């Protein structure tokens, strides 16, 4: 019995070795390989910055005004212009530009002044959201007008101030077909 077990074990080992040899034979068959270069995935860009550090003020006749020293009188109408540089890169890029409005500190009598909300234009035309990449940076112009109304009576609002504080602009990507 003991010999029989030994023989069986030896046979099993022999069969296993034979199988291993057979596996070695498989490696010897044809094989081939190929590699692909999927390339580099590059992200696009989205940004909005002030084109110039300070916007410009002009009077009713289009003449430049230094707002730090200029003193308005009833009938004055000043226009603030700030160019924004919008960068949009991406095949499915689209973004809306908007303003967060004016949060001014108004020392004038509200009825005596007329301040427009910021108006965004591209060239001469109102901005058409969403903006899409054009291959180069785009210029969006923000315009605000401040009018000291000529209906102001007596000596109302002499030596008054109207602080615009900060006027914010946001550029927000919007989803497109093929994005989620």
């Amino acid at each position, binding site marked *: 019995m003991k010999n029989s077990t030994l023989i069986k074990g030896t046979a099993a080992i022999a069969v296993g070795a034979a199988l291993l040899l057979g596996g070695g034979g498989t490696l010897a068959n044809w094989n081939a390989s190929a590699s692909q270069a999927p390339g580099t995935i590059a992200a696009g860009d989205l940004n909005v910055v002030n084109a110039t550090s300070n916007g410009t003020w002009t009077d009713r006749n289009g003449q430049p005004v230094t707002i730090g020293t200029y*003193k308005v009188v009833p009938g004055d109408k000043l226009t603030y212009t700030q160019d924004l540089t919008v960068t949009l890169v991406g095949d499915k890029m689209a*973004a809306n530009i908007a303003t967060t409005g004016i949060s001014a500190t108004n020392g004038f009598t509200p009825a005596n002044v007329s301040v427009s909300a910021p108006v965004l234009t591209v060239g001469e035309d109102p901005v058409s959201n969403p903006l899409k990449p054009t291959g180069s940076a785009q210029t969006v112009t923000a315009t605000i007008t401040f009018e000291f109304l000529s*209906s102001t009576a007596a000596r109302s609002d002499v030596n008054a101030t109207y602080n*615009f504080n*900060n006027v914010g602009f946001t550029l927000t990507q919007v989803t497109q077909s093929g994005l989620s």
Partner: protein
Amino acid sequence: MRTKRSLQAAALIAAAVLLGLLTVQGTYALWSASASAAPGTVASASFDVALSAVPSGQVTNMTLANGQSANLAINPAATLSPGTSVYGGVAVTNNTNAGGTFNTTVTAGQPVMANVSGGSLAQYVTVSAKAAATAAECSATGSYAPVGSSGLVSQPVAKGGSTVFCFQASLSPAAPTTVKGQAVNITLPLTARQLCGVPGGC
């Protein structure tokens, strides 16, 4: 049954909330950028009109610091006698610090006379006025005229410029001796008004 319905409702709500949250998160996950501009502070000008009387030499702003109108005394140097006149004037200067154009006109209203100490001199005194370039012209007798109902209106006075109003008080040759030594207070209201600089009118 009730438990089952509750569970179904809860599951529905949970699914809706999850869907909502996923939607919101998706929106925020997209890119955004912001920029801000600081347009600065717009300041209004002062509306200061300086008055200088001749011959008294009194100088004042038309509007006092407390917002009240100033009173300016001209005080003619000479005294009146029947058939003669005394003269005085006031130089009005547009002293605004406006950044742009700021033209004004100054109007002298009709004089109001009041007898002093119960006298009767006022009825024999007439007041005339004229606009002039310098106070020296006030003692020249020509071109004085009574002040009309709309007052005497100056030419436009530009920023930093000035105009002069001259006044002449004359005593009638017919004044009786009873008014001798009497005095009369003559009040002339002066008004400065900004001229409209807006194209198309104000």
